C-alpha cells in the first residue's frame, strides 16, 4: 500500500535561510534609494535601505535594530508579510528587473540577533503608569513592546496556553515556525512585560476591574472562528484555523485522503497546503471565479505549484456523511450575475446543476467571525469591528484597540496589526503625558536662521511642498 505519510520536510519552513554570502550579494544589489518607496510601502515604515546597507557592510546587529525599532515583530513579518504587495512590490528594481528579496534579508538580520539572544532594547525609565493589554497576537505584542520601551508597566493577558496569537497558532509552519513567534513573546518579556497566559477577558465587569487597576487597557483581540456555512451536515466538517493550529502544535489534523477546502482566501490556501502536504488529494471550491478570489496572486500560484486543484463557480449545499464520517460534498454550479455591493459579479446557482464531490474531509476557511466580545463590552462598532478614532481610542475612555478587531477596512495583516500597536503606544504615551523624542536631529535655531543654511535648504525654483 502507498505510504501516505508526509515526508519529513513537508512541514518545515518553505524558504531556507539565506547564507551569509547570499545575503551579502543580495544586499549589495540594493541601490540604497533615497527616500525609498519600499520604506513608504511598508505599513510599519521600516527603514529598509538602511537595514539592507547594514547587511551589506556586515553590521547585522545594527541591521536588526533598524528593523526592530520600527517593527518589533520583524522576525514574523519577514516571513508572513505579503512582500509582493508591499515593500518588494514597490522596489524600483521591480520595474524592469527583479526586486530585492527584502523579506528574506530582513529574516537574515533578525534571526541573527534572535539566534544569539542579543537584547537590543531596554525598558524605559519607569513612568509610574501601568497598562493592561488583552491579546498577545501581533497588535498586542507590538503595543506591549513599545509601551515597555517608554517605561510603562505592561501586563499582557492571553487566553490561550501560549502567547503569540495568530503568529503562534494561525500561520502554517511552512511560513513561520512556532519558535519564531514564541521568540517574540520572549522578547517582550525581556523588556519587563508581564505575560499572563490562560486568562480571558469575557465581561464588562472584568474590563472595569482592569481599568480600575491600570491607567489604560488595550484591546488586541483578533478575530473569532470561521463562521458557519449554514448547510446540512455541517457538524462533520473541520474549521480551517483549527486544522492549521493542529498542524503547528503537532496534533492530528483529522485530514484524510481526499480533502475539499471551501473558500479561496489566503487562509483557505494555507489550510489546503496542510491537507496537500499531509498527503491528501486536495481540491478548493469557490463560488466565484479565479478573478474574484481574495488570495494573493502569488498564493494562488503557490497552491497550483503544490498540486492543489480548484473548482470555481461551485457552491457547497450539503455535506454528505455516514455517522459523522464525511463521504462527499454536494455542490451546485454557479453562474455570474450582476455586480453586488462589493462590485464583484454576484454568483447565482444554476438550477438542477447539483453534483457530488466524493471526499472524506471537508475544511472551511471562509473568513473569520467579527469580535463578539466587542458587543459584550458595550463598545461602539463599525461594521462589526471595534470603532476607534485616529488615536486608536474606543468609545470607552482609556480603552484603546488595534489589530484585526478594528479592521473595518483594508487588508487584515500582521504588519498592519504591528503598526496599530505602535500607534496605540504613541497615542497612549501622549495621553499619559509623555511625548516621543524627536526622531531626526535638528539644527539649532541660529543655524537655521543663517542665510547660508537658508540658501541650501530653500534652493531657487518654485516653492516646495512636502511630498
Amino acid at each position, binding site marked *: 500500500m502507498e505510504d501516505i505519510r508526509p515526508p519529513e520536510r513537508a512541514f518545515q519552513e518553505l524558504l531556507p535561510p539565506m547564507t551569509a554570502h547570499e545575503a551579502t550579494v543580495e544586499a549589495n544589489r540594493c541601490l540604497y*534609494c533615497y527616500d*525609498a518607496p519600499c520604506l*513608504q*510601502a511598508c505599513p510599519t515604515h521600516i527603514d529598509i535601505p538602511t537595514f539592507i546597507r547594514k547587511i551589506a557592510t556586515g553590521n547585522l546587529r545594527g541591521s536588526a535594530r533598524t528593523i526592530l525599532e520600527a517593527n518589533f515583530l520583524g522576525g514574523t513579518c519577514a516571513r508572513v508579510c505579503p512582500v*509582493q504587495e508591499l515593500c518588494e512590490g*514597490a522596489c*524600483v528594481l521591480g520595474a524592469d528587473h527583479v526586486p530585492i528579496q527584502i523579506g528574506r534579508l530582513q529574516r537574515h538580520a533578525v534571526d541573527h540577533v534572535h539566534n544569539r539572544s542579543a537584547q537590543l532594547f531596554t525598558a524605559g525609565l519607569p513612568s509610574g503608569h501601568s497598562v493592561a493589554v488583552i491579546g498577545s497576537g501581533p497588535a498586542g505584542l507590538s503595543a506591549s513592546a513599545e509601551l515597555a520601551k517608554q517605561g510603562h508597566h505592561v501586563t499582557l493577558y492571553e487566553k490561550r496556553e501560549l502567547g503569540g496569537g495568530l503568529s503562534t497558532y494561525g500561520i502554517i509552519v511552512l511560513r513561520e515556525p512556532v519558535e519564531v513567534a514564541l521568540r517574540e513573546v520572549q522578547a517582550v518579556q525581556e523588556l519587563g512585560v508581564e505575560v499572563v497566559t490562560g486568562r480571558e477577558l469575557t465581561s464588562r465587569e472584568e474590563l472595569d476591574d482592569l481599568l480600575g487597576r491600570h491607567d489604560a487597557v488595550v484591546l488586541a483581540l483578533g478575530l473569532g472562528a470561521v463562521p458557519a456555512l449554514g448547510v446540512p451536515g455541517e457538524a462533520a466538517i473541520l474549521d480551517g484555523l483549527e486544522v492549521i493550529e493542529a498542524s503547528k502544535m503537532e496534533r492530528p489534523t483529522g485530514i484524510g485522503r481526499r480533502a475539499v477546502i471551501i473558500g479561496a482566501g489566503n487562509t483557505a490556501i494555507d489550510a489546503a497546503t496542510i491537507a496537500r502536504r499531509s498527503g491528501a488529494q486536495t481540491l478548493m471550491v469557490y463560488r466565484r471565479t479565479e478573478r474574484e478570489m481574495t488570495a494573493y496572486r502569488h498564493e494562488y500560484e503557490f497552491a497550483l505549484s503544490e498540486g492543489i486543484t480548484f473548482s470555481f463557480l461551485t457552491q457547497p449545499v450539503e455535506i454528505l456523511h455516514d455517522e459523522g464520517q464525511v463521504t462527499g460534498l454536494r455542490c451546485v454550479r454557479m453562474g455570474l450575475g450582476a455586480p453586488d455591493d462589493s462590485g464583484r459579479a454576484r454568483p447565482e446557482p444554476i438550477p438542477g446543476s447539483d453534483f457530488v464531490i466524493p471526499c472524506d474531509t471537508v475544511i472551511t476557511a471562509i473568513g473569520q467571525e467579527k469580535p463578539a466580545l466587542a458587543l459584550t463590552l458595550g463598545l461602539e462598532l463599525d461594521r462589526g469591528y471595534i470603532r476607534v478614532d485616529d488615536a486608536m481610542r474606543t468609545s470607552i475612555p482609556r480603552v484603546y484597540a488595534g489589530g484585526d478587531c478594528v479592521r473595518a477596512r483594508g487588508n487584515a495583516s500582521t504588519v498592519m496589526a504591528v503598526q496599530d500597536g505602535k500607534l496605540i503606544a504613541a497615542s497612549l504615551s501622549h495621553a499619559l503625558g509623555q511625548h516621543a523624542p524627536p526622531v531626526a536631529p535638528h539644527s539649532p535655531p541660529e543655524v537655521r536662521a543663517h542665510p547660508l543654511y537658508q540658501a541650501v535648504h530653500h*534652493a531657487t525654483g518654485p516653492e516646495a511642498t512636502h*511630498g
Partner: protein
Amino acid sequence: MADLSINFAGIRAPNPFWLASAPPTNSGAQIHRAFEYGWGGAVWKTIGAPVLNISNRYGGLSLGGQRLLAINNVELISDRPLEVNLREIAEVKRLWPDRAVIVSAMVDADPQAWRDIVMMIEDTGADGIELNYGCPQGMSERGMGAAVGQVPEMCELNTHWVTSVTRLPVIVKLTPNITRITDPAHAALAGGATALSLINTINSIMKVDLDTLLITPSIGGRGTHGGYAGPAVKPIALNMLADLMTDPQVRSSGVPISGMGGIQTWRDAAEFLLLGASSLQVCTAAMHYGYRIIEDLTDGLSNWMDDHGFATIADVTGRALPQVSTFGQLDLSYQAVARINPDKCIQCNLCYVACNDTAHQCIDLISPDGVRVDPGFDPRANGREVTVTRPVPQVRESDCVGCALCANVCPVDGCIEMVSVPSGRQSVTWDQLSAQQPAVTQQWGAMEDYRAATGIEIH
C-alpha cells in the same frame, strides 16, 4: 576578421596578449598550457638572484561582494634555480616558435651580473628581455626592482649595461611608485631601451583583518607592504600610459609600449591600445579565472575591431591619444548639463541626494501632478501603490554646472546623459586666457569683472 598579430620591437606574436611576468609564468609547464589556450606570448617570471619566498603571499580586495577587485602580493622573483628556468625557457621557445617568449630579469646593480644573465637568456633562444625595475617589495630592499626604477640615473645605467651586451630587444618595465613616470622612461631611453612596459605593481597594504586585527596577508603575525594590481589599478595605468605616449621625447624615440595594469577583459585591452599600447600584458585576471580567459580576450577584441573597421592592432594603437590634453587646453566655454530621461528613470532618487548633498543643488523632485516637492512621505499611505505617487527627479538646467555626479551615480544605463548645450560664449582655453588677459588669471577682482562681462554666473 581583424588581424591581431603584432610585431613589438621586433618581437612577433599572433595576438597582443602576453602573460605578464608573474606567478602565471612561473614554469615551462604553465606556459606550455597557456600557449595551448592561445596566449600570444609570455614574459617569464623574473629570474635572477637567489631568493626564498614566504607564506602566505596574497591579499585580496573585495567590494560589494565582488571578489578580487585587486590583489596585492609579497611574492618575490622566481625561487626556482636559474638553470631550471633557463632550460625550460629554451624548451618552451623551441616548442612554440610563433609565440613571444620574453624573459624578465633582475640582478644586482653590477655590470658583470647583468652581462652574465643576459648571455644566459640569449642562449635560450628567447625573443626578448624585460628589465624588472618595478618590483616594490622584498627585492627593492636589496637594491633591485623599484630601487632601480625609482632613481633615473640607476635606471639608465642598468639599462645601458644590458643594451650594450645584447642583440635582443630590451623592454624596460617601469614602476608606478614614482612622482613622474616620464623621468625613468627618459632614463631608460637614454640607456638604450628598445621598448617600455608599464605598470608594475603599486605599493599597498591591502587590509587589516577586523577579527584578528592582523594585517592581511599575515605572515606569522607580521605584515608588510605588497604590490597592488588588478582591475582597481587600471585608471592609474592608463594615465601613465597616456603620459608616456604624449611625451615628446618618448614619441620621437618611437619605442613601443607594452601596457598592463588591470586588464581583465577585451574592453580593458582596447582602452590600452587606444591610448597607445601595442602589446598587452595580463596577470591578475588570469590568476582569478585561469588561462581560459584568452579566448574571450582575443574573440572580443577581434569582434570589436571588426565593428569599428580596424584591420590591425596598429590601426587601433593610439587612436584616442589626440584627445589627451592638459587642463590649460580645455575649452572653458564648453557647457554640458545633465538631462534625466523620465522614461528610463526608476526613481531611486540617488541623483537627487547626490546633487543636493554634495554637488550643486540643481535637481528637484517633481510630484506626478507637476509640483516641486520635498522628500518625505505620508506615513498613512503604504503598499506597492505608493510608487504611483512617487516624485521624479528633474534637473534645473539653468543651475546645472555639468559636474556629471548624477550621471555617475545613476544605476540605469543611459538614463542621465550629459548633454552639450550652447553656452553663448566664445571658445577660450585657460592657456589663451592667461596669455591674452593675464590679470584675469591672477587677481580675483579681474576674474569677477571677466565673469560679469562674459556672463558666467557661478551658483
